[in-house]
């Protein structure tokens, strides 16, 4: 009908099935179309950056677990690398490889979760999510085996990793790595050619490359828009420069491309893990550092590639044991910069799917 109705306000969240946490969208709607939207965050704000100023650098590692709780390993790693660069700590070879293995495992787990929830948002009643969870479960089992925790791992340390994995870790990892490509193939068969899924995601939530770069988007969202940018290749940290892998880039920048980038990155992660398993040397897993590490006065901005994009740590040291300023560049938050433009004039269903494809973690947004 060609009648326009009165605009009204719809509060999506903070308790809503598809906001992935306590995230609120205040949407002005006209019928099924979104006229304006405003995101309201902060329900999970724990003032991490302020608390960090009262803790030593090592004591701050658990905060990075709680920030991006779906990719705790990469959060840990980001902080560890930042402090190592600031204080000039050397990391043993074996620790570097363990870091690569675990952050790639975490990437698989996180991407699986992201894609599963995206399809759930599109309306497939949890089936793909639970299939994705099958692999994630095994990865979390591996985490548990190594460091005792499944979600908030707190595994990376300044100067290495906390523990060497136990003996039974390696066969289990090998088995997982062997079966993963088949499993990912299965998802491809199930999802990639599903007509309904294609109809819901293709051409929806398109981000142009120019906008993506200008709005500081990073990670799979940026790559989905066609920009070949991955810090693992562009600014290699750890031992990524010794790994042979490709960076996956989308073409049109819609929801489907972001989905496909995450999907194809799973293969690349498996590839990296396989190489790391074959190359890993023996030796120490950690260098000893002073309990209260006192970096020289100075500041650093160090970034790595988390599953959600560039997770950066801006640390200012005044020479004391505590950071003078601790800032976490949260990719989840910054990837939302374009949300208003994406959501405006979209249908409600499209906006939900678009939000799902941005893969936000509210713990990281709010910190």
């Amino acid at each position, binding site marked *: *009908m060609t009648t326009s*109705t*009165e605009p009204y306000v719809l509060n999506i969240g903070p308790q809503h099935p598809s906001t992935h946490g306590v995230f609120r969208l205040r949407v002005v709607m006209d019928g099924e179309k979104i006229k304006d939207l405003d995101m309201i965050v902060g329900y999970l704000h724990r003032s991490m950056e302020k608390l960090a100023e009262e803790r030593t650098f090592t004591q701050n590692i658990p905060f990075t677990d709680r920030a991006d709780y779906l990719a705790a390993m990469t959060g840990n790693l980001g902080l560890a690398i930042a402090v190592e660069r600031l204080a000039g700590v050397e990391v043993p070879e074996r620790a570097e490889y363990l870091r690569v293995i675990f952050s790639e495992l975490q990437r698989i787990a996180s991407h699986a979760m992201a894609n599963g929830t995206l399809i759930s948002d599109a309306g497939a009643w949890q089936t793909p999510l639970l299939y994705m969870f099958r692999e994630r479960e095994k990865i979390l089992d591996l985490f548990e085996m190594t460091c005792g925790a499944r979600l908030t791992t707190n595994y990376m340390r300044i100067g290495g990793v906390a523990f060497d994995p136990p003996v039974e870790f390696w066969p289990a990892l090998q088995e997982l790595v062997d079966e993963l490509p088949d499993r990912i193939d299965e998802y491809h068969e199930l999802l990639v050619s599903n007509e309904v899924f294609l109809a819901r995601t293709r051409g929806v939530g398109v981000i142009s490359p120019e906008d993506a770069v200008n709005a500081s988007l990073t990670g799979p969202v940026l790559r989905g828009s066609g920009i070949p940018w991955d810090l693992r290749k562009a600014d290699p940290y750890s031992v990524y420069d010794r790994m042979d892998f490709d960076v996956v880039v989308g073409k049109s920048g819609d929801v489907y491309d972001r989905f496909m980038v995450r999907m194809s990155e799973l293969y690349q992660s498996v590839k990296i893990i396989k190489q790391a398993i074959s190359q890993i040397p023996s030796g120490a897993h950690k260098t000893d550092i002073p309990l209260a590490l006192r970096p020289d006065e100075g500041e650093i901005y160090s970034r790595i590639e988390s599953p959600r994009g560039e997770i950066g740590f801006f640390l200012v040291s005044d020479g004391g044991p505590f950071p003078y300023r601790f800032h976490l560049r949260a990719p989840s938050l910054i990837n939302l910069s374009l949300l208003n433009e994406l959501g405006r004039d979209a249908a409600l269903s499209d906006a939900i799917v678009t939000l799902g494809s941005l893969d936000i973690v509210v713990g990281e947004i709010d910190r």
Partner: protein
Amino acid sequence: MDSPGIVIGFYMMAGLVLGSGTLVFLARNLLHALAFLVISFLGMAGLFLTLSADFIAMAQILIYAGSISVLMVFAVMLTPLASRDNGNTIYVLPGLLAAGGIATFVGFLALDTSWSGPATDFTTTIDLIGNLLLGKYVLAFEIASVLLLFALIGAIMLVQISPSDPEEGEGR
């Protein structure tokens, strides 16, 4: 002697029709009135069933309870700023008088006239109606379909917002 089902059915349905019809008049809210109107329509369909007019009863449910009431819902929803109360005008007293007059008159006539003829019993009405519609009344049938088509087009024309009209220039 009618079968007890018919007797019970008639009184139930008549009560339903008249009671909810009265409530349509008395309801404060337009949507409440609409709900009662639908109940009244359904009761009317029940009355039709007691007259063994099964096809008409189903058509009544389909057209009145299913479509016209939904149309009214849409009309109410598309006029959001209009008041939703079911208020009366100054004509309510004449209206009530006329209603009472009509009801009394018809009732008096009905009771006073000596009606002859037994009740007919039709087994199925649907094929008889079909034959009549496409036989004896085929012209009227076609005219009715043309009327419906014109009503459809007319309704669309009426509510259409032309994008060129500057006064209602919110055309999408």
